[in-house]
């Protein structure tokens, strides 16, 4: 291989593996991926309903009975999924795949590093923030993906309403970050 070709290859490797892709490229790809998900899973991309199942199966491991929760007793398809277990659950598989995919991309760029929590305020923010996202997504029938991205793309009014109010929430959250976490 000539020196010129070797340099070109290095450059291409860098572009594909190391450099970040433009946001708009991500936007187009995510749009296409959501369509693919809708085709293969009979419903669009969603992230947070899976967390209910993860919580239920963990609770089961500790001897609990999640099948008594109204979320399952009042929704037969959800109960069926609960009985099916983790390895049959598309939502779980896609979520775990996401985590692994992100790791793969980071490692391929040799950019992986464990980032530890810096302060107790950060810890509290993570705990409280997670709790709010979990409960909020149950009320709104989804999160930034299921209610916002997929809801709007499904031409559902709830998606647009979600979008307006998540924006307000982000504004309030920013005020808190600047005031307490900077």
């Amino acid at each position: 291989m000539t020196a010129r070709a070797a340099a070109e290859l290095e450059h291409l490797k860098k572009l594909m593996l190391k450099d970040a892709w433009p946001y708009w490229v991500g936007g187009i790809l995510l749009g296409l991926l959501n369509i693919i998900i809708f085709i293969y899973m009979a419903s669009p991309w969603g992230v947070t309903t899976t967390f209910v199942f993860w919580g239920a199966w963990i609770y089961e491991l500790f001897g609990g009975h999640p099948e008594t929760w109204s979320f399952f007793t009042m929704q037969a398809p959800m109960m069926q999924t609960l009985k099916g277990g983790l390895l049959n659950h598309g939502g779980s598989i896609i979520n775990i795949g996401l985590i692994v995919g992100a790791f793969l991309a980071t490692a391929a760029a040799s950019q992986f590093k464990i980032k530890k929590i810096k302060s107790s305020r950060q810890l509290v923010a993570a705990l409280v923030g997670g709790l709010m996202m979990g409960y909020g997504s149950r009320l709104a029938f989804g999160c930034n993906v299921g209610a916002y991205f997929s809801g709007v793309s499904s031409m559902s009014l709830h998606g647009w309403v979600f979008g307006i109010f998540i924006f307000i929430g982000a504004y309030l959250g920013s005020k808190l970050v600047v005031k307490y976490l900077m």
Partner: protein
Amino acid sequence: MAEFTIDALGEACPIPLLKAQKKCKEIQVGDVVIMNIDHSCALKNVPEWARKEGYNVEVEEVEEGVWDIYIEKTA
């Protein structure tokens, strides 16, 4: 030309960008801010903001997942 270092390692979004914006407002033209980060979001949004402001920006990878962003206030 004064040099200021900001350690933003371990900070969550959007703290690095907020710190960069705050510091760049305070410094003089010709001063340089060096920001240490380990957040992939900051790696993108800090240089993007700084370049939009017209500043000179250079990014150097210090080790795996750690970068130094050099911002020179030009105007």
